[in-house]
């Protein structure tokens, strides 16, 4: 959604520049009683003054605009996971701000768990804005739990995640190979 917003804003800014200049040119032409430039504005004017509000197509278009707006509003207002999380390396200057990108950090933590013998796969989800919340889902036996927790803690320490970190570890029994 962040990438969508950025691209959409860039497009919007270009549309505003082109549209704004176009409106200014058309207004000057109209004030000087010249014919509209490029677009058939007179035909559009005739259509807008002759089409009733209750026209089927107009109502469908308005409905589509409303639904698009509602979808956009929901997409923007729903909670997003942060793209980066704060870290505090003890050796860094106190005035500096440090962050790690969420997705690579998730991959690194999942790698750390998956490297343990007996762990078939691991998935990690990171949440939290100031304090990290780590959700680990691993396909492993219960006796591997301590080792997985230690591996995750070690990686969090290497990443200088600010304490305390809340780690939730869930295990799924390994599937038997036929």
């Amino acid at each position, binding site marked *: 959604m*962040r990438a969508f*917003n*950025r691209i*959409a*804003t*860039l497009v919007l*800014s*270009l*549309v*505003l*520049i*082109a*549209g*704004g*200049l176009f*409106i*200014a040119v058309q*207004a000057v032409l*109209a*004030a000087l009683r010249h014919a509209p430039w490029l677009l058939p504005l007179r035909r559009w*004017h005739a259509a*807008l*003054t002759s089409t*009733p*509000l*209750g026209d089927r197509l107009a*109502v469908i278009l*308005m*409905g*589509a*605009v*409303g639904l698009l*707006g*509602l*979808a*956009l*509003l929901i*997409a*923007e*207002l729903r909670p997003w996971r942060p793209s*980066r999380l704060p870290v505090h*390396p003890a*050796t*860094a*200057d106190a*005035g*500096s*701000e*440090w962050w*790690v*990108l969420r997705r*690579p950090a998730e*991959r*690194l933590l999942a*790698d750390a768990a*998956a490297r343990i013998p007996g762990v078939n*796969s691991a998935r990690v989800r990171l949440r939290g804005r100031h304090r990290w919340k780590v959700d680990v889902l691993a396909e492993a036996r219960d006796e591997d739990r301590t080792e997985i927790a230690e591996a995750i803690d070690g990686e969090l320490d*290497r*990443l*200088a995640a600010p304490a305390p970190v809340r780690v939730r570890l869930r295990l799924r029994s390994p599937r038997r190979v036929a």
Partner: protein
Amino acid sequence: MDRFNRVLWAMIGLVLAVVGAVGVAAGRGHLPGVDPRGALLPRWLLTRWHSWGWWAWAALAVAGLILAWSGWRLLRAELRPGGRRSLPADLVLEAGDDRETAGKVSLNSPALADATASALERHAAVEHAFVRLLGDARHPELRARIDMAGDTDLRVVGEHLGRTVEQLTATSGLRPDPVEVTVRPGGDTGSRVH
């Protein structure tokens, strides 16, 4: 910029939702005082527009120019990192009072940023670094993006960055504050286990 974009598109979404809902309500005859048989562009609005004469077109031209200017500001803000202006390419430092620092000193700030990135990349823990110097000569800011090698302790990178910023200050006299660092752990080659 992320927060600004999010608020902007939430507002646009809200406006579109309200316009759509009001349009549908008016078209279906559910809006009191609005006749669904009336035109999309009502006669009373046209009459008022024509009564303003030349001023209506002048106001529309000004509104168009304001829209274009807003678009330009939006584009410029979007293309700047974090909405901040980069340090001027030819940075002229203030002359000091003593003999050693007297005289005009000018620096090429993109070259300085590249040199800082190269200095960061000299450490084995840093696979790739990208540095931008923002603000002005009196209040410079540093933003760095670092791809950190796998199995590296972030404290090592923190220490190395501190030394590199000290070198930058010693060489150029610039003391960046704040220093903002975003790290990609595992670098470009991080494997994917899901």
